[in-house]
């Protein structure tokens, strides 16, 4: 399942909100966000994580600089790494540059949108809005479905 839709106008936003499938609500012409998903949380004390593929369909490199969401006070792009001893660690990933025609995958065990200081629990079946900010000032807002805690991918 690849949802690949691009929207730049208010009508599209409206259509999406009323339930037509479209992860990317608005924003930079050159960014396509696909297969966004997240796991439900237990309460608000534990951080959440969201995943997606961010594709640069434009002619110039794009740099993803940050995240914003009403769901969490401290959203940040993180990277999990597992070293040669099998030890996993997680740290802020900094800025992520996506070359023209390339994409970056936020997926379990690697890059992820870490959602720290949740404002409300992430409930299975719900969604939330996540805004990706780029160095050129562009913003793309994505509607992220919340799947079960044991979900393995965008299909559940």
């Amino acid at each position, binding site marked *: 399942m690849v949802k690949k839709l691009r929207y730049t106008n208010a009508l599209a936003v409206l259509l999406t909100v009323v339930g037509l499938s479209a992860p990317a609500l608005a924003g930079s012409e050159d960014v396509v966000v696909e297969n966004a998903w997240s796991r439900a949380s*237990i309460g608000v004390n534990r951080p959440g994580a969201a995943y997606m593929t961010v594709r640069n369909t434009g002619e110039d490199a794009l740099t993803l600089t940050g995240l914003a969401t009403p769901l969490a006070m401290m959203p940040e792009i993180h990277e999990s790494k597992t070293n040669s001893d099998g030890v*996993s660690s997680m740290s802020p990933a900094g800025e992520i540059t996506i070359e023209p025609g390339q994409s970056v995958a936020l997926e379990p065990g690697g890059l992820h949108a870490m*959602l720290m200081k949740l404002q409300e629990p992430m409930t299975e079946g719900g969604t939330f809005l996540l805004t990706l900010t780029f160095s050129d000032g562009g913003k793309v807002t994505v509607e992220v479905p919340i799947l079960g*805690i044991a979900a393995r991918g965008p299909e559940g």
Partner: protein
Amino acid sequence: MQRRQLLLCGAAGAGVLGLTLFVGWWRVDGPGAPEPKGQRPLPLSAMEFRLTDHEGIEVGPGNLIGRPTMVFFGFTYCPDVCPTTLSHISGWLEELGDEASEMNVVFITVDPERDTVEAMAEYVGYFHPIIRGWTGQEDQIARVVEGFRASYERVPTEGGDYTMNHTASVFLFDAKGEFVTMIDYHEPREFAVPKIRRALTEDVEGAK
């Protein structure tokens, strides 16, 4: 006087240098050297620890002998790696079906401060029903991790919270409690499931 102090200083300096060299040797080549990578976990029968499972029952390594066992470390405040490992394991167990019902599958927390018995109970409830969650005193957790030749470390994060670095591999033991092999974090299902089958059938002393 001046000279004597200098001499003393020199002697102390030589002493410090000697000690430094000795400490260096101890850490690098001597008995204090870090254990080589990939060192095998102890057999379960050689481990000693007391923990509590998510139903409040006292448990130890003895509870794992008699059936094949799968053990992994994590913590419930882990948003990425741990739920991913747990859901992979749930998937492997589904694929194994009835075969898996003969296994012990245990998630041991490395964050007992936040992972109380209640927290573990709620968390494991979202995954495959045979997965047990074990927690306990900090010193007991340290003993378990040592027995598995695993590691963990508390790392502060911005905003005053903390996260835990920890071994993310899944450990497999046969029914006698002998270590069989481990499944690395990024290992695909095609490799993971046969490894589990090996732990289920193997009673030869774990050929890796």
